[in-house]
């Protein structure tokens, strides 16, 4: 098409030159001017556009995410048409791309809005966004520019645990305990008369002066539940029919346990053999047990991003053997996996002898028990089976 324009321009100029008709020269210039303008305009328009995408980048499943695209034309020339295409994963919406064609007046900005839905956990790219335009007459091919993708983190579902039985060997902490062995001197629950054998440091001297009898303080027993979650994301460890729902349920369970622990002001950490989308080269570095909501957010972000692997660098047993040395005495180990076998029971038994408290949680609709479940109980290793999220809610 552009060649045709140039031919017409050449004919106008030639005939104008031969016949001396001024209007033909003017027409030739007009066509040439229109042609040059049409070629220059789209590039100029794109250079003078700025685009921004705004959305809440951390959400929980089920939330609706409003995405606002702001496009501003800084030029004094209008943008005749602008096709805006913003890609996003199909997991977040019914359609794969937000597509809209707009025009932009000079020095104006436009706000486009669409909505995504966080259907499930993950780390999703929103974008890249392309802006495409061309000229009015079809003399140039469409040209594109755009902005790169932003990322949306959808946390895993956190199910509030009602009253989980989480045993701990670590005395004196923030959690109340039934064993008098773990009395916490910071938790005074009352006073009683002195009995023979009571240590003198338990005597409440003010109360003794008031009562004129020796009074001793009674303490509430407590434990410190430092927790480490071993999350096994090796797909081979799950039943073939639960290779999708099993790991997902394990992640939900890990997030729920972590949230419960942080709520109870306990330290919690995670060790997993899955794949972090942001660090696809090697193994995920363990997150040491810490307290606080900020730490919980860090854990949840990791759980949002993590993916399963078919043959990870470390399997569950290697992971336990490698990291148990670094854990403090009395730490509770949650081992989230899809199957339990002799080797795992053996390794956990060793862990138990080291003063740690392991709990096995088997996740998935189908779980594999390669040893009788009472084997674990024999060694006082609790084994719990979670088939669905409902089981977790009832925990």
């Amino acid at each position, binding site marked *: 098409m552009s060649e045709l324009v140039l031919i017409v321009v050449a004919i106008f100029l030639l005939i104008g030159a031969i016949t001396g008709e001024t209007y033909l020269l003017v027409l030739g210039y*007009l066509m040439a001017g229109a042609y040059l303008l049409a070629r220059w305009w789209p590039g100029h328009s794109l250079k003078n556009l700025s685009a921004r995408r705004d959305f809440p980048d951390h959400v929980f499943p089920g939330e609706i995410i409003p995405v606002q695209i702001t496009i501003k034309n800084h030029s004094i020339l209008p943008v005749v*048409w602008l096709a805006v295409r913003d890609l996003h994963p199909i997991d977040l919406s019914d359609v794969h791309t937000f597509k809209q064609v*707009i025009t932009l007046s000079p020095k104006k900005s436009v706000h486009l809005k669409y909505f995504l839905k966080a259907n499930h956990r993950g780390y999703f790219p929103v974008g890249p966004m392309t802006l495409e335009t061309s000229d*009015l*007459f079809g003399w140039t091919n469409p040209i594109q520019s755009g902005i790169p993708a932003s990322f949306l983190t959808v946390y895993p579902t956190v199910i509030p645990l009602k009253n989980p039985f989480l045993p701990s060997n670590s005395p004196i902490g923030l959690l109340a305990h039934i064993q008098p062995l773990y009395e916490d001197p910071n938790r005074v629950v009352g006073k009683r008369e002195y009995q023979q054998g009571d240590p003198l440091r338990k005597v409440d001297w003010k109360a003794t002066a008031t009562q004129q009898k020796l009074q001793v303080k009674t303490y509430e027993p407590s434990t410190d539940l430092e927790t480490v979650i071993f999350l096994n994301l090796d797909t081979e460890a799950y039943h073939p029919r639960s290779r999708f729902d099993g790991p997902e349920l394990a992640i939900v369970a890990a997030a729920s346990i972590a949230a419960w622990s942080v709520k109870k002001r306990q330290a919690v950490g995670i060790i997993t053999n899955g794949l972090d989308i942001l660090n696809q080269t090697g193994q995920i570095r363990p997150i040491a047990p810490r307290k606080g909501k900020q730490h919980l957010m860090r854990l949840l972000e990791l759980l949002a991003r993590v993916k399963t692997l078919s043959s990870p660098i470390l399997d569950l047993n290697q992971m336990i053997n490698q990291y148990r040395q670094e854990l403090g005495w009395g730490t509770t180990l949650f081992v989230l996996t899809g199957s339990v076998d002799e080797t795992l029971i053996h390794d956990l038994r060793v862990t138990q002898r080291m003063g740690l408290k392991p709990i096995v949680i088997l996740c998935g609709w189908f779980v594999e028990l390669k040893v009788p479940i009472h084997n674990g109980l024999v060694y006082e290793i609790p084994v719990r089976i979670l088939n669905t999220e409902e089981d977790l809610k009832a925990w």
Partner: protein
Amino acid sequence: MIGIALVALLTHTRTRSMDTSERNAFRISEGITYLVVLKVISMIISGQTNLVEAFHRWQVQFLESIFDLPYITSLLPGMVAWGYTLIFADLYDEFEDRRQDFRWDELGKVQNSLKAIRSKMVGGNVALLVALVFLLAFANTPIDIPNVVSLPLTVKSSAAIVILFTAFLLIQLAITQLSLLRTYWEHDRSQIDVSINRKWLMYSLVVMGVAGVISLFLPTDYSRQFFTLFLWFSSILFSFFSLLLYLLSYPFLLLFHFLFAQDESSPSLPGLPAIQPPVTAAEPGPLPLWFEIAKTIILWGIILGIIFIAGKRFFSTTSTLFPKINRKVLFQKMRDFFKALFHFLFGVKILIQEQIAQLKLQSKPRQLSSKPSFRPLRSRRAHNAREKILNLYCDLVDFAGDHGLQRLRNQTPYQYRSFLSSALPDLSSEIIDITEIFIEARYSLHPLDENTASRIASETLLVKKAIKHNAEESPFNSIPRSS
């Protein structure tokens, strides 16, 4: 010319539903009618009001008398306008017709065929523009050969004609480009800004206006001087080469001079026969009176007969059309021609959408798909039974889509028929009939009558009612079928 173009547009719309032979017959009758009307107009303009004298002259020298200079000068532009309008209207119809196929056909195919039609339109217009420029430019050059011919011809307002035609060409380019892009966007299911048509036209005019203003301020006089200088240099170069050629050929010329020097006394060139004076035929004797009378009757009988038959056919065919030629109809027919242009000006799409929205508001409120529905720009006016059937079918598809029976992008009408029949098993015969007639209307040239269109309308109504009933009954009426 404008009048002929307008009538050609009107008759073009009318003849779309005709079959080929009927259309050809109509075209012949139309052409003869134009010939007669233009002759009458040229006679009135040139002051030949004495019909008796004119008839006598036509009888003696038929072709020379009828096809005189004023008649030919009015006939040629008229024929060009007529032919151009018909060809352009055909191409535009084809363009719009093919554009609708993006719903059924592959986008690439549709785009390629649209581009091919666009190239034809633009290429034809460019060729015409170049021809017009040539014609006007050289018509404005006075021809004055002493003692032979002197034609101080000047075509008034030639600049305006060329500029207008160029502007028209640019507008056509802009319109067809928008149509191409819209096809892509609609196929891509992009949301399209409602003001894009208006702004497209506005920006096109602004571009042309700015370019025009800039061009006016350009030093065209200098350009002329530059081109004059260029031509002068060219002529020097040409003279130099002529001289070189002459010098090279001089020995041969000299040789020829020596060889043919003896025949200088001969008045003619050697080898050519002498020109003989023409032999005049003997004057024919006077014909008998009865022969002259018979000749006159037969000649005028044939001529008047042809004119009568052609005129009758033309006016009978357009009898229902001409009474409607008032400002409103003319405006509507002009909109056919400049359809896309009026998309800019009046935002037909907005009106259609508003009407659809009003219809939806009037009907029982229902929860439709959350996805925005973008209808292609499609003329809902039907000029004949074929267009009515096409519109009815498209309406049905849209309606079904709004009620959860959405046609998939890659579904053919037959596949969609099966899908629709499975959803409405009681009305499968109606659905089959609607689809068959649609296929016939869309992809064949079979004549379709109003009865068929009425039948399809009633069947469509039944199917729509059933779809609506099903949608209201179904708890999933708000969930469209995923594509």
